[in-house]
């Protein structure tokens, strides 16, 4: 396994594992992040895992670039033997169509596919969180079924409500905060991917998975109420 060490100034280092978006490359990024966290190396300020590389922010008064690389070279990219890696999957309740997913109908006619089929395809995969970025809590997900890829909207919307579930190109994801955007909106989740007031402001971590679970409007409203009352606990499955 090749690791490329690329300096990003005098206080950050990028360890690159490849050039493409690829499940195995991304897994190496996650494993290196786990390794570094387990080593408690003094001088490391924070880690930023992305698609194909790990950015390491460090304090050069405490540890030099050279010494840091020396520590990282101890990383052996071996899977722990006999231990199958379990996926941590966040179940994301999603109300598809109607006002929650205003583009679902148009998408259905463009694709010549029923809305039920689109929902089935969208909710049957487990999507890997390759990284977070762009906005607080925005997850870059891999694994969208080819049959429901959609080119971005010709005219992006100026405002999309938080919780919107969309499809753009070969990607799907959830808008964690209200923002402009050019994705096709197929549904909305009542759970908060980002809430700065919460003890853990951002729900997801890179390396985990997301599964969308179809819910009714009345389920949506009851979960939304629980979220508001701080009574909702995110549901995870491990497979």
């Amino acid at each position, binding site marked *: 396994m090749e690791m490329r060490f690329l*300096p990003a100034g005098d206080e950050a280092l990028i360890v690159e594992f490849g050039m493409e978006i690829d499940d195995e490359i991304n897994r190496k990024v996650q494993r290196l992040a786990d390794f570094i966290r387990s080593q408690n190396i003094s001088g490391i300020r924070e880690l930023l895992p992305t698609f194909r590389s790990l950015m390491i922010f460090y304090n050069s008064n405490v540890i030099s670039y050279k010494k840091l690389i020396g520590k990282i070279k101890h990383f052996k990219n071996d899977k722990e033997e006999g231990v199958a890696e379990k996926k941590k999957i966040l179940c994301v309740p999603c109300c598809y169509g109607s006002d929650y997913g205003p583009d679902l109908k148009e998408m259905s006619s463009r694709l010549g596919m029923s809305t039920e089929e689109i929902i089935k395809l969208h909710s049957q995969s487990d999507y890997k969180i390759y990284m977070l970025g762009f906005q*607080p809590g925005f997850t870059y997900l891999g694994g969208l079924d080819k049959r429901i890829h959609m080119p971005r909207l010709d005219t992006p919307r100026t405002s999309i409500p938080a919780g919107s579930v969309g499809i753009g190109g070969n990607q799907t994801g959830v808008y964690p905060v209200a923002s402009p955007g050019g994705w096709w909106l197929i549904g909305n989740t009542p759970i908060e991917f980002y809430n700065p007031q919460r003890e853990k402001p*951002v729900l997801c971590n890179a390396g985990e998975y997301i599964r969308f679970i179809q819910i009714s409007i009345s389920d949506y409203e009851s979960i939304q109420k629980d979220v508001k009352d701080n009574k909702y606990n995110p549901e995870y499955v491990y497979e």
Partner: protein
Amino acid sequence: MKMYIEKAGSLTTVQDEGRFGYMEYGVGESGAMDRYSYRLANKLVGNENGEAALEFTFIGADVVFNSDAIIAYMGAEMNAEIDGVSIKRGKPYEIYEGQKLTFGFAINGLRAYLAVAGGIEVPVVMDSRSTNLKCQMGGYMGRKIETGDALTIGGFDYSKKDALLKNKVEAPTYSDSICVRVIKGPQDDYFTDEGLNTFFNTTYKVSPESDRMGIRLSGETIESKNGMDIVSDGITFGSIQVTSSGQPIILMADHQTTGGYAKIATVVSEDLQYLAQARPGNEVSFKCVSLQDMQKGLIHRLFGKK
């Protein structure tokens, strides 16, 4: 104690050292653009490092306190006055209840920092008091300061006043033309020799569209081998990305955490302060230094070795 904002200035925000530990969740660091001036302002009024201060951009604020206070300002020269009497940068002043502290246009530099003994008390959000404008979070209600706002000032041991008032540091003078040190990479191999040559040997102008997210530069087009697009990776304060138009952007305190443009070089941390003070139209050029020399130099300066 309260500080009342009688006139907000053009872009006034509450800032501190920055918000760290949340980059992996898509939350950038924010914090003072010119950390050096911010730290000195705090130090002058006896604050511990990390207390929140006000950052002014181009036009400063007018403020009044409802109790006596110790203040200091650093960074850009903004013709500050207390009740019409001029005050200097780099020196603490006592201001009495009801007196008015005013700031004008930046006449040298771009950003000034006003520190008040006791610090500005805003809620800590994700370990920091910094305002993140893009995420509308932190600082004073997640937004820039507006006329009519009232900021709470933390407690301060007034018996230290006389000692504090003796503090003094030299006020900086900013040049209209700066050369900043950079370390090549992480994606310098995306550029042709010609492109690297252009970057290191020509001068760029600071564009008026620059802001806390990034300093946009205009000048000669930087040639890439096969375009600037990369599969997004991490960004730091000082990353220099080159967009598809071939023009560089230096990513600053409010940078996004990840980005899909190749980054030709990264500004060394000590030189970010000069960029934070660069005004639209100022000239910027780049000098390549080696990372090892930088880190050796830093250790020598810290421990006083030659």
